[in-house]
């Protein structure tokens, strides 16, 4: 059944309202020129080839969270520059540029909202903010999202998109993998559900910590998923990588995600899973 005919019982799914400048968009995969309004209605999935356009953290809130129910938390948490890190640009300059570009303070939005009338602790990462990289601020926000789920005894849903740990915070970034990963032990022991949603791309430090630790792991089709980046692997082994290597489909084949869900079915799948995992036995 198409999403727009869904009746009261099922989740109320809203297409994202935000349409960026320009009326037309071009699909990177098949080259199709698409009217943006049509693309937005199709959840930013190419109607011709099914390729999933990258969307913003805010758009995931629109797609997945019941309208008007999202309350953001910890928006004020931001990164500092504890190492005075400078490469081609100083880290504070990169941070400022990322904040201006994304209108966000960090590479993740966290809060509480309803998925099909069930309250969840929800977080969505923003790849546009320094490649969705995880530094101390992001690690703290994820940890607090875990703790909010614990305190309120509600499920946790995290939509990941990240190139990994943020190099500019070096060892502090690395330790965020341990901070978030060990925080999840408490959620697990409290018997609360955690669903990890992997979008293009989710790799390295984030993939090797909380993104891989969902009770159920869902991937969007065609996302790049993995530990090491394809370029690094290619340089190490000095040969071409096989077709489809490190895609969502590759991860499904090798047993590292539970299901691949097209974006328009994502809310429905989350709703079903959460209801199942969260319902008390009758």
């Amino acid at each position: 059944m198409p999403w727009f005919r869904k009746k009261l019982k099922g989740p109320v799914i809203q297409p994202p309202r935000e349409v960026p400048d320009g009326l037309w968009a071009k699909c990177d995969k098949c080259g199709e020129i698409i009217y943006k309004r049509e693309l937005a209605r199709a959840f930013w999935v190419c109607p011709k080839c099914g390729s999933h356009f990258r969307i913003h953290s805010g758009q995931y809130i629109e797609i997945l969270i019941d309208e008007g129910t999202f309350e953001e938390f910890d928006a004020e948490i931001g990164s500092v520059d504890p190492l005075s890190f400078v490469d081609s640009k100083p880290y504070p300059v990169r941070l400022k540029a990322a904040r201006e570009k994304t209108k966000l303070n960090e590479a993740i939005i966290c809060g509480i909202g309803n998925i099909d009338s069930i309250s969840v602790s929800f977080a969505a990462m923003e790849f546009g903010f320094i490649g969705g990289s995880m530094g101390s601020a992001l690690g703290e926000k994820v940890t607090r999202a875990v703790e909010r789920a614990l305190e309120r005894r509600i499920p946790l849903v995290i939509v990941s998109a990240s190139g990994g740990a943020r190099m500019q915070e070096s060892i502090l970034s690395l330790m965020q993998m341990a901070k978030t990963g060990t925080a999840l032990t408490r959620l697990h022991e409290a018997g609360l559900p955690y669903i990890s949603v992997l979008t293009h791309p989710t790799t390295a430090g984030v993939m090797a910590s909380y993104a891989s630790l969902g009770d159920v792991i869902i991937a969007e089709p065609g996302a790049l998923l993995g530990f090491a980046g394809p370029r690094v692997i290619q340089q190490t082994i000095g040969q071409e990588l096989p077709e489809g290597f490190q895609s969502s489909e590759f991860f499904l084949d090798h047993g590292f995600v539970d299901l691949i869900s097209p974006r328009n079915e994502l809310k429905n799948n989350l709703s079903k899973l959460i209801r199942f995992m969260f319902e008390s036995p009758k």
Partner: protein
Amino acid sequence: MSSQTYHLGFERPLIGLEQEIKDLEAKVASGETELLPAIKALKEELEKKRSEIFGNLSRWDRVQVARHPRRPYTLDYIERLMEDFIELHGDRGFRDDPAIVGGFARMGKHKVMVVGPQKGRDTKQNIMRNFGMMHPEGYRKALRLFRLAEKFHCPILIFIDTPGAYPGIQAEERGQAEAIARNIFEMGRIRVPIIISIIGEGASGGALGIGVGDVILMLENAWYSVISPEGCAAILWRDRAQAEKASEALKISAPDILELGMIDRIVPEPAGGAHSDPVAAEDMLGREIIKELDRLTLIDPDKLLKMRLKKYRSMGVFTEG
């Protein structure tokens, strides 16, 4: 490369002195005892120079020390510090990963589970050990041993010396990211003390995948970072040759990591680095480990876990408004 002739660039001023002393000692052995005071003076000069050089190492110099081919590796520490080591193999799922070793052992009055990546001393060994770079089955073998340790109430000793988790096709096929994530998670809830010693290279998730514990010790010249200096240089400077610059920017040396509060203590090395006197280096770390064993085994498991989670909960530096 012969281990006898391997010297780091900044060690060169020491080589001439060492040779001179050797020559004089040979003469003393053949009866020229009047040379003894000269030897004594030269030895003093040598030690002075050594302290001078090693007291002023840059971060990049320390990376070279951490990678020295004569530096003690996991099995050297086990051999020197432990008894009755019984190596255990395999992850029970795919294969045994020779890049990491582990098993039951005794250390002083404690029975322990000891685990750590193992590098090779020559090319043949290094190929077998994959240069200490683990595949997912290596992390899963470690986890299997951690669980055994928990079952039999053995504290866990982990030695970390790895240039990283192996980035290869098969590593990805078998879930390198999942294996590391799973270990981090499980190490957050293993109910026996976990003592981590970073003895050489601590590269990224490859190190952290066996690096969550109650106390983190770090040798003076070891390095620990989110990415290797070469990897960072390739990404941020688009040139691996900028690794020295990257090592400075990443602040990867033991004093840096201690200052940031990410380790508990620095364990000093002999004046010329662990490779200059491996036995002394092994003993120095051994004493620290025993202290921690004596302390941590007295703590109730519930309290231990609470402290461990609290330790990781507090890691990071950020602003709140």
